């Protein structure tokens, strides 16, 4: 089947009706980024598998802008294909009605099919059925690829098995394997029933049957565990292989991160040791008094003088006070050495009364004026009066010389200052030492910061070398170590399971042989012979099915490597290797790029892309051989990792292949630096192709306004 024509009408950037008249073989569609290549691919994808959702998003903005309100227009993608010399048309469309500016309603889509026979007669048919008939969806799955990433369909083991089943004979042989098993099973049963009729070995036979059943169950369980362990081993090996490229970086990152953490902690500790509270701890409290010593000496001298002077005055004062006290004591001693009566006895009033009466009323003696008693009384009165005057004088004299002891306080202050001077004298040194200490720590911090910057630069380098983020890189190391441990464990389990399986299988074989021996003695010989033949037929059917599978894989491998070598002509490629493995009694295939039997280390994207394309071409070729029918392959930007030269070689190779291929690429276009005008490079003239188109946006256009976007199709 080949696609003869593709029409795209009012679909996204394709305003109006745009047609591509295609040829068998290689069709190349050139287009710069953003000028309609992917929309071309998406138009076909919508035709083949699109649904009714978001149809209004597929409408050309320019068509909607230019339509009158309440008017309608059509969005349609259609292909005309040729198959067995007959023409078939498949079109998918919906109607758009403009309601107001930038707003529209859309109908459901219609998928129409038309068949035109050799005589030119056209018949309308179910579009979906026609599409599935001419281009089955299983084939479409391996015929349309958008970008390089989609080429790698083989990471999904089911996808590859679907493909193999689609094109290899192996799937066809499944029914023989099933029938072979069915017939053998029935033959086994017939023999068993026949043997059981013989009562001789009945109990032994039944025990053997029971043992065989138990052993078969045990074998199945071990096989399930073994498969699951092998699956885990494959995954772990895959993970380890994928991680290996990162592990070196991850390991280095881990070491550097530890060093960085260590440096950060040291810096933090050093900052903790620095006390730069100079103002409060030194400057305000002590530094201000650091030049106080001469003043203190002056002050201390003055205080000393004051103290001496005060003591002298006090001494003189005390001396005078002592003299007065001595006099007072001396006067008291004059009273005939007897203890005199206290002054005022008799009282002043009695004394004056007795002097007036001139009688001593104490001794009742007349005491005329001038007489001794009279004089005595007069003297006594005078003493009293004097004593009264003397007491006042003494009270005055008892006042201290200095009411307040300021001098002493000044002395204490001076002594205190003297003590502080010791601290003040050390202030300069302490400040100096603190500055030196802090500066030394700052220098240490500076050096550590330099070291930190170097480590961080190293870390950036490591992260720059890695294509995964730092967090993931850290995880890689953790996972890598965990995976390695898991792998060791699983490998050990695998050995254990294999060894247990061997034991069970050997035991099972022995039991079956024992059972067969009883059968030989007891069962009908015809049934035994029938069973033997049907057992062998089952083996033949199974082995043939496996052989067909292996043959297909071998053929696919040969063809893939053939394309692979031709795409990468004159460069080292390695070999694409297809490996079959059995999982839960099913066959699976792994694809790997190898060099000398070892996994190819980190193939570049270009090599991987060419490997994937080679496999797809090989499949396409095999499909042609097996199905006796060609199907087109459509690739959107499959070679973005190729250089222009390699793309040219690649296109020339495709040109030599048989099937129709439609390739959308952005190569061979150049933009004039001054005028920004696009043109096709001369190198494209040397690229073999059957048809070529250039899709480009109509100029001028506003890149921010979809209403101005219209992709033009130029047939080259």
């Amino acid at each position: 089947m080949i696609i003869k024509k593709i029409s795209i009408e009012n679909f996204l950037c394709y305003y109006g009706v745009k047609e591509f008249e295609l040829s068998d073989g290689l069709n190349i569609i050139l287009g710069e980024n953003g000028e309609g290549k992917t929309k071309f691919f998406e138009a076909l994808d919508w035709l083949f598998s699109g649904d009714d959702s978001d149809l209004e998003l597929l409408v050309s903005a320019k068509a909607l802008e230019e339509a009158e309100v309440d008017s309608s227009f059509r969005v349609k993608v259609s292909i005309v294909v040729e198959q067995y010399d007959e023409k078939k048309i498949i079109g998918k469309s919906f109607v758009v009605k403009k309601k107001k500016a930038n707003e529209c309603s859309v109908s459901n889509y219609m998928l129409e099919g038309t068949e035109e026979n050799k005589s030119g007669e056209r018949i309308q048919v179910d579009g979906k059925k026609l599409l599935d008939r001419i281009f089955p969806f299983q084939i479409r799955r391996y015929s349309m690829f958008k970008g390089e990433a989609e080429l790698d369909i083989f990471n999904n083991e089911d996808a590859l098995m679907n493909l193999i089943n689609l094109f290899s004979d192996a799937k066809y042989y499944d029914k023989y394997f099933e029938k072979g098993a069915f017939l053998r099973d029935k033959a086994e049963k017939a023999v068993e029933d026949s043997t059981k009729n013989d009562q001789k070995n009945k109990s032994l036979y039944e025990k053997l049957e029971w043992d065989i059943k138990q052993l078969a169950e045990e074998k199945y369980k071990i096989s399930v565990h073994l498969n699951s362990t092998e699956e885990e081993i494959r995954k772990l090996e895959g993970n380890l292989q994928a991680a290996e490229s990162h592990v070196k970086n991850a390991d280095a990152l881990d070491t550097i991160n530890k060093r960085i953490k260590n440096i950060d902690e040291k810096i933090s500790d050093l900052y903790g040791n620095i006390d730069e509270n100079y103002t409060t701890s030194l400057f305000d409290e002590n530094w201000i008094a650091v030049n106080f010593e001469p003043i203190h000496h002056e002050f201390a001298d003055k205080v000393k003088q004051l103290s001496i002077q005060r003591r002298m005055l006090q001494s003189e004062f005390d001396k005078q006070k002592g003299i007065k006290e001595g006099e007072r004591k001396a006067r008291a001693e004059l009273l005939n050495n007897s203890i005199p009566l206290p002054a005022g006895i008799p009282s002043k009033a009695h004394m004056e009364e007795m002097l007036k009466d001139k009688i001593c009323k104490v001794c009742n003696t007349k005491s005329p004026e001038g007489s001794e008693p009279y004089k005595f009384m007069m003297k006594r009165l005078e003493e009293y009066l004097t004593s009264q005057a003397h007491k006042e004088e003494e009270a005055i004299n008892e006042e201290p010389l200095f009411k307040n002891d300021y001098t002493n306080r000044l002395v204490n202050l001076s002594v205190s200052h003297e003590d502080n001077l010791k601290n003040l004298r050390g202030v300069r040194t302490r400040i100096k030492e603190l500055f030196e200490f802090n500066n030394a720590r700052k220098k240490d911090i500076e050096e550590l910061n330099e070291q930190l910057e170097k480590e961080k630069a190293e870390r950036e380098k490591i992260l720059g070398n890695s294509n995964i983020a730092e967090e993931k890189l850290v995880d890689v190391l953790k996972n890598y170590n965990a995976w390695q441990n898991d792998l060791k464990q699983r490998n050990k389990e695998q050995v254990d399971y294999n060894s247990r399986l061997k034991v069970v299988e050997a035991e099972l074989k022995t039991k079956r042989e024992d059972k067969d021996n009883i059968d030989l003695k007891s069962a009908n010989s015809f049934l035994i012979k029938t069973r033997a033949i049907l057992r062998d037929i089952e083996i033949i059917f199974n082995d043939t099915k496996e052989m067909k599978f292996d043959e297909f894989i071998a053929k696919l491998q040969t063809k893939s490597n053939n394309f692979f070598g031709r795409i990468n002509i004159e460069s080292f490629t390695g070999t694409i290797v297809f490996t079959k493995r059995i999982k839960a009694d099913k066959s699976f295939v792994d694809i790997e790029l190898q060099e000398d039997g070892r996994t190819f280390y980190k193939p570049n994207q270009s090599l991987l892309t060419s490997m994937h394309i080679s496999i797809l071409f090989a499949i396409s070729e095999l499909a042609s051989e097996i199905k006796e029918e060609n199907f087109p392959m459509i690739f959107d930007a499959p070679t973005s990792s190729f250089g222009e030269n390699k793309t040219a070689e690649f296109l020339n190779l495709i040109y030599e292949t048989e099937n129709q291929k439609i390739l959308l690429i952005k190569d061979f276009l150049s933009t004039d630096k001054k005028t920004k005008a696009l043109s096709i490079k001369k190198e494209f003239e040397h690229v073999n192709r059957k048809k070529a188109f250039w899709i480009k946006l109509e100029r001028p256009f506003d890149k921010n306004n979809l209403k101005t976007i219209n992709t033009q199709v130029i047939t080259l």
Partner: protein
Amino acid sequence: MARKDEILSSFLKHEILTSKYELEKSDNPLTVREGLSSTKPIVKAIALIVDGLENPTPITDAALRNQIIQFLNETI
């Protein structure tokens, strides 16, 4: 070569037929029709299965089994 003949031929290539049944590959029938006329029970049994399964109206399991058993019963 018809598909069913190809299938039969692919089965008859199996080494068990030479090693165990001592059949010469050169004597192998080329078609299912020839296989159905074979004097070798295993060859005819395989031919019967291929013929039954490649028939436009596929044979049922029970009918296929009966056919094989009956044939073998007559032959071995």
